[in-house]
């Protein structure tokens, strides 16, 4: 009897769909849709810059036993093909969550390295717009259903439940940011384009002279001048960048430096996606109030 119970528990564990995601945010979304039917792990911690990831054999090991690998796509995870190849998993389904997202900052001319690390398919930080999360959830749902069609209703019900929560929060966030419409800010990298568009903010400059290129003194001087001329009072700094230069820029332009997070778990208080967006919005609202 005990043996049967142990075997039953063992096979019940085995029945879970093993999913690995590139980002911690995608892990949460997969867990939201898959519920108890999925076993989810992720590769990039919230505190890490997802553009630059060293390829570790342990990542390959994680993918080896996975059925789905959920990615942001749009070449954010340029490191992913080597990990996928190294995993030697012929049954792995790679999910690109960007498929149905409306893309911003898609280059219209030929992209080359003189432009910095420009993504040829557009800005990939779309998950920071909560409305885009619905496309991500749908993509995850479609692929989970491919693997376990018998659980389609369960997955769909989980997704709808989360979308309802998300809609309530979107309404709350929209109301919180309504007074900030048109507020100008500067960020380190082009991480908040989708977020800013959703909440009516305006990112007028970046600490990086070009995407992925470290700040230079001449660019910082120009940026300070731009901030003074445009009345920018907020410098938003992503969790994984050093704060030396942004701090100097903020001080010189009489602006406030705030830490924002691009991913779940990036900084304290961003343990899930709702809290992540909550944190970013409250930080901006508070900085805007402080400066007014």
């Amino acid at each position, binding site marked *: 009897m005990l043996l049967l119970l142990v075997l039953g528990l063992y096979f019940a564990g085995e029945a879970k769909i093993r999913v690995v995601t590139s980002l911690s945010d995608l892990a949460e979304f997969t867990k939201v849709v898959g519920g108890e039917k999925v076993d989810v792990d992720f590769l990039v911690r919230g505190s890490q810059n997802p553009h*630059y990831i060293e390829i570790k054999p342990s990542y390959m090991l994680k993918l080896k036993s996975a059925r789905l690998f959920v990615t942001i796509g749009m070449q954010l995870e340029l490191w992913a093909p080597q990990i996928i190849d190294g995993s030697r*998993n012929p049954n792995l389904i790679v999910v690109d969550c960007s498929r149905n997202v409306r893309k911003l900052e898609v280059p219209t001319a030929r992209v080359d390295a003189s432009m910095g690390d420009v993504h040829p398919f557009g800005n990939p930080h779309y998950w920071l717009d909560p409305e885009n999360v619905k496309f991500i959830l749908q993509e995850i749902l479609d692929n989970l259903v491919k693997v376990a069609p018998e659980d389609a209703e369960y997955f769909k019900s989980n997704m709808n439940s989360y979308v309802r929560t998300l809609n309530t929060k979107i309404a709350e966030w929209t109301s919180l940011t309504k007074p900030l419409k048109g507020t100008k800010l500067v960020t380190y990298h082009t991480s908040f384009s989708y977020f800013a568009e959703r909440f009516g903010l305006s990112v007028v400059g970046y600490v990086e002279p070009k995407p992925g290129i470290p700040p230079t003194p001449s660019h910082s001087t120009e940026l300070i001048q731009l901030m003074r001329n445009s009345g920018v009072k907020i410098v938003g700094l992503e969790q994984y960048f050093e704060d030396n230069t942004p701090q100097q820029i903020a001080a010189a332009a009489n602006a406030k430096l705030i830490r924002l997070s691009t991913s779940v778990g990036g900084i304290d208080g961003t343990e899930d996606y709702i809290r992540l967006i909550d944190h970013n919005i409250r930080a901006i609202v508070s900085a805007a109030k402080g400066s007014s």
Partner: protein
Amino acid sequence: MNDLRYKSFALMFAVFGTTLSIAQTTLNPEISVIPRFRLESDDGGELPVRRIFGRPQFSLEEFEIAIQGSLNPFARADVFLAKKGFGDEPIEIEEAYATFLRGLPLDLNFRIGKYLADFGKLNMVHPHAWSFVSQPLSLERFIGEEGINDLGISGSILLPAGDVLYSKLTVDVLRGNSISSIAPSSDERYGGPGLVDTVAASVYYANSARLMMFFPTSENGDLEIGFSGLTGIHDPYQKLRFYYSNVDFKYKWKPGAYTSLVLQGEALFNSRKILVGPDARGRRSFQTVTSGGFYVFADLQFNKVFTIGARYDWSQSPYTNSDKAEGGAVFIGYYPVEETAAFRLQFQHVRSTQSVAERRSINSIALQFVFALGPHKAHLF
């Protein structure tokens, strides 16, 4: 009517042309150009008369062209062409191999072509990706400047070792010629026809294997340990065999985006039979030489663009254990924009003892500049 026909043709041409152009863009392999320049001076030029640093020599260490891409859904190909210097040096095929990644039983991977064998930790890493400028002495002496780089077939398999330990076994069958040419023309000393000719005429297979194990030690730390073995004919004239065994490790601690510490090293043990000359009765006599060498280095990244490190080397010779060399190097790396450009400054001190009476030491300063034009991939651990 003609106008309509012309417009239809133009439309067809535009559609077809666009499709073709997109298809070519996506099907083209990735091409990168990676030259390494070196400005170097040492104080060994006028020894034993006086110790003075000579005029710095500016050289093109190597010019590498990498052409890489998928062959089909199951395999990829990697070709590296290299040329040393600005002069008449030939363009060499540094590596050219296909790797079969999918569709094989037991998830085996196969590599066929000319390649750097999976022996030790540094052999497969191209010099432009090293933290330092010069090759560790033990590798220079035992596997040569070009490393173990030969025609061959390699198979690798992931060993079942749970969810935490990544364990890979790679076995190579190599043509063996580059291994044979490691020997310093031992045949010529005994009136042989010359090593190069002998090597060109015959094939002496070499076999190597490496067991690699990787596991995280903490949230921010990872450790890789490897055990390698290599055997082949080092003296084609006398058909004498050598055996190498090697143990390597790499530990990396990366607590933040711009802070990391790498501790890495490998130790190589050599056993080989050598011809020591005719004995008193005029018969060939042999001797077994056992020797070895090791290096260990630390490399610290302390901000986004700077690294600093130090290396210690100790090595005997493959042919005698009385010929020793040891040295140390300190190096600074500056990477202004990711890995697109790198400056490395290194000071190295090397002391060699060929016999009790013959000791020599040389100091050198080298500045290396590397740039990478083209798609640069994420680095393997």
